[in-house]
């Protein structure tokens, strides 16, 4: 298999066709169709908003808390959807891999691209929501794609690594489900990071070393208010500051390397 090369035309066409198919089939047979791509994260947001913001009174000191929460849940949904689909991609396309030769990474990328499309739709909703909520539009909004790109890179790295292991050890899917549950609480999605920082600065710093937390906080900083605590401002040591970025790079490089090494045997092992 050649080095992943998006410029090679045949691969691009295949990637496009597979993504189109995935997206078309995702909501096939449901009455509301594509609307579900919007409704699911919005409903998750509604539940969390009622429970945490209204009943438990989280985030009362944060301006535009509903938008703040929505940004967090949307990016989180993106991460879980991306990795969930990505890890399953090779196994669920087993029929194809056993019968035809093509670069395997295309299957993983196409599975995750559906999540990217969904995120872009949801981003429009966040912006409308932010404007209604009185957030002032700012040039810093234009930097949000960088954060999304970082989060996507991380998801892709995880998908390559765990997706390749999943071919042989199907336990990975279940293990990842548990990890996702744990991560949800280890990242300041529903609770503001300031709440943790109030009782332990160290704990808040450790939380912010997580690239997902760093991305979500950065997105909030760029979109909503520069009062948001980010990894960059909260962690003072310049070497520790860049740990989230380093982690993303390590996971992507390691994941792609492992995936490429294992992909030769996918057809036999699936």
């Amino acid at each position, binding site marked *: 298999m050649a080095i992943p090369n998006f410029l090679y035309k045949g691969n691009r066409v295949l990637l496009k066709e597979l993504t189109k*198919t995935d997206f078309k089939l995702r909501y096939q047979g449901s009455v509301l169709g594509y609307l579900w791509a919007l409704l699911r994260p919005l409903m998750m947001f509604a539940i969390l908003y009622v429970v945490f913001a209204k009943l438990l009174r989280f985030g009362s000191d944060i301006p535009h808390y509903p938008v703040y929460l929505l940004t967090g849940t949307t990016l989180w949904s993106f991460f879980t959807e991306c990795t969930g689909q990505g890890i399953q991609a090779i196994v669920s396309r087993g029929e194809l891999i056993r019968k035809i030769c093509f670069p395997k990474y295309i299957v993983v990328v196409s599975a995750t691209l559906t999540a990217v499309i969904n995120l872009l739709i949801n981003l429009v909703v966040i912006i409308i929501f932010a404007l209604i909520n009185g957030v002032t539009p700012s040039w810093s909004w234009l930097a949000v794609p960088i954060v999304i790109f970082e989060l996507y890179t991380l998801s892709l790295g995880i998908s390559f690594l765990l997706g390749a292991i999943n071919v042989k050890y199907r336990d990975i899917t279940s293990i990842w489900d548990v990890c996702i549950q744990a991560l949800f609480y280890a990242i300041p999605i529903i609770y503001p990071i300031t709440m943790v920082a109030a009782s332990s600065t160290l704990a808040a710093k450790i939380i912010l070393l997580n690239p997902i937390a760093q991305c979500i906080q950065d997105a909030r900083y760029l979109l909503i208010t520069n009062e948001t605590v980010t990894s960059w401002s909260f962690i003072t040591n310049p070497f520790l500051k860049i740990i989230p970025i380093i982690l993303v790079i390590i996971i992507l490089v390691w994941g792609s390397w492992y995936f490429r090494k294992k992909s030769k045997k996918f057809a036999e092992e699936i």
Partner: protein
Amino acid sequence: MENDIAISVKNLHKSFRLPTERSWGLKQAFFNRLKGIKGYKEQKVLNGIDFDIHRGEFVGIVGRNGSGKSTLLKTLAKIYFPEKGSVEINGNLIPFIELGVGFNPELSGRENVYLNGALLGFSNKEVDEMYDEIVNFAELGEFMDQKLKNFSSGMQVRLAFSIAIRARGDILLLDEVLAVGDAAFQQKCNEYFASLRGNQTVILVTHSMPSVRKFCSRAILIDNGKVKMDGDPKKVADAYEKLWD
């Protein structure tokens, strides 16, 4: 390498690891390691295969079930990697290990043609050029915007088969795909195969000796992962039929 050679196979070996007990999953892998069990046994499938296929040859590959034909074909199609030895391909190879790979029942006939085309490495423009011919050959013109799940199974196979033979590649690889559709469609396929002889490099894996005798310009008999006979299709077909005597 000579320009005239389409496929060159040298000393090809391939074996598989067959799991002995249920070794799927982490738990079993852990216990196997603990007990020092390998968890699989090596099964030799190809034991040193050699042959060259020239441009324009129509080669039939025959052999019993489990003799290694399909593994050989999958190695030619680069789905499996050779363990030892080499496979060299000159030109664009179009594999049809199974008809209608990637066909999705929820997509329309037209969408399936484009998806299948992309899987075989064709651009949308190339499929555009083949599209009318494919639909005409399959005689499915009026159904192409219907979902594939509403096609009868015969219609699905006809569509898949038409893609297979209309796909423009230098080398065509076909595994057990003759004999599809009704009598009229078969007649058409037979005529088409007969017209291919001498113009297109085809490798056909089949159990049907009449088609070997009729279409092939050369046949190879595989037994126990080795080439047992290579040459005149009539003689090879006779030898194949004698395998059971």
